[in-house]
């Protein structure tokens, strides 16, 4: 009985990692850039949701989620325009780009600390304490929101990539930006779209994570585990990001039970190292086509 709950909670937290990992992969595909600020984007989303809640405590959770996603999406749009794209245009070295994304993450974390304080905040809403019983197992209601959101995200991304011009353009640009321009595609627009989507998914992860745990300026570290998840599933693969997230979530929850929760945080990276030793390109490198 306890094992079932462990597995379900592992899969749920895995969905959170998967959402952030999707952001890593989308941006990597679109711009060839590893955006280490992705975890801090998640934090920003969590805090924006918190602020929305404190302004309008009666607002249904779904609205909080949407508001945080839109606001963070706008933020991602601006950051891409003023910071990343100019640096890429100037052909900045990969090492500077990595530092740039790390720097933006640090600035974000510190700004959040200034603005929202150094102490973790919790969402004071019924959802935080709401337990439902399914087949005799007590489960937090937010689990269902998380899994539901992940399912919708996978469906939406699939439709985007296969059924829309925007998605087709995203894929074309990630394969060959120059030839894409000959087709009349603006690669800059594709990178905007990728950043906005990645930021929105990160924000959703932050808001969905909050009722289970808390929001805090230093939770960008969660993003690093999501990075491990994206690597496990092959950076750039949408399908791989989701599966990588679930693997990390499960391994960490179950492994934490076996070897002690104090080692839990290192498990994501242990799994990543193990996968990379056996399969340096990650698990889904063949599957460069989207999901």
């Amino acid at each position: 009985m306890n094992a079932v709950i462990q597995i379900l909670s592992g899969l749920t937290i895995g969905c959170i990692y998967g959402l952030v990992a999707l952001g890593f992969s989308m941006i990597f595909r679109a711009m060839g850039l590893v955006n280490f600020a992705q975890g801090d984007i998640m934090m920003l989303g969590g805090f924006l949701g918190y602020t929305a809640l404190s302004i309008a405590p009666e607002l249904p959770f779904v609205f909080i989620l949407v508001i945080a996603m839109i606001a963070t999406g706008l933020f991602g749009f601006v950051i891409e325009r003023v910071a990343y794209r100019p640096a890429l245009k100037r052909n900045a070295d990969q090492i500077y780009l990595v530092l740039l994304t790390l720097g933006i993450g640090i600035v974000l974390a510190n700004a959040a600390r200034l603005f929202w304080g150094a102490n973790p905040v919790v969402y004071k809403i019924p959802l935080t304490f709401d337990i439902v019983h399914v087949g005799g197992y007590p489960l937090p209601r937010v689990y269902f929101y998380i899994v539901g959101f992940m399912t919708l995200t996978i469906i939406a991304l699939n439709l985007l990539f296969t059924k829309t011009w925007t998605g087709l353009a995203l894929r074309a640009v990630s394969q060959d930006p120059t030839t894409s321009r000959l087709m009349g595609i603006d690669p800059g627009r594709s990178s905007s779209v990728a950043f906005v989507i990645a930021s929105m998914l990160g924000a959703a992860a932050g808001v969905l994570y909050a009722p289970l745990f808390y929001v805090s300026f230093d939770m960008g570290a969660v993003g690093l585990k999501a990075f491990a998840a994206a690597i496990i599933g092959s950076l750039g693969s949408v399908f791989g990001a989701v599966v990588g997230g679930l693997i990390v979530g499960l391994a960490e929850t179950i492994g934490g039970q076996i070897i002690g929760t104090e080692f839990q945080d290192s498990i994501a990276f242990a799994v990543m190292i193990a996968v990379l030793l056996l399969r340096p390109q990650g698990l889904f490198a063949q599957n460069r086509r989207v999901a």
Partner: protein
Amino acid sequence: MTSLSIQNAAAGYGHTLVLRDVSLEIPEGEVVCLLGANGAGKTTLIRVLSGLLPLKSGSIKLGGDDISRLDPISIVSRGVATVPEGRRIFPDLTVRENLQIGAYHRRRSYAGTNELDFAFEMFPRLKERADQMGGTLSGGEQQMLAIGRALMSKPKTLLLDEPSMGLAPILIQTVFETIAQLSRTGITILLVEQNAAAALDVASHGYVLDRGEISLHGRADDLKADPRVQESYLGLA
């Protein structure tokens, strides 16, 4: 009049000039071929015409309009499509998607998958392979796909960069037949080729690019008879 012309063009990469003073005209509805040795600057000229590479000086005219400063998006929207050197098929898009993306600039008027029918009629092989990834096609099939993709934009002018490169003789023949067929539909064509004999057969006019400058130009028949062309490009002594 939608003839495409370039006047006194200079262009290059960084500080090195690859094209020095190139002038060339492609009259509406005609096939003009551009010959030249490896490294002469033929692909560079195609990049300039398609908007990928900015001119350092000179001008490009399409019909009566100056298009010298336009980006590739505006140029393809004005009906100039490119079949780039090396085909440049999107390897992880299906054949169908590779064709569809050719219509990207006119996506608002795109009428759905039946728009692909003409490409499939023209190149039946592509229809058999419609759901296969572009990267899994043979060289010849990829060339058909690159031409089909360019045609999906409904171009009035087509820039072809060495479409016969790396193909077996039988396929080379198919490519040139396709070009002749396209020309009969009224499309204006600039054809860059190493295969000078076949190119001069299908073209009405030809230019020879030599280290960034036009060294010869004239009617295709006259070029075929020109001893300099015969020696350097037709392999006749």
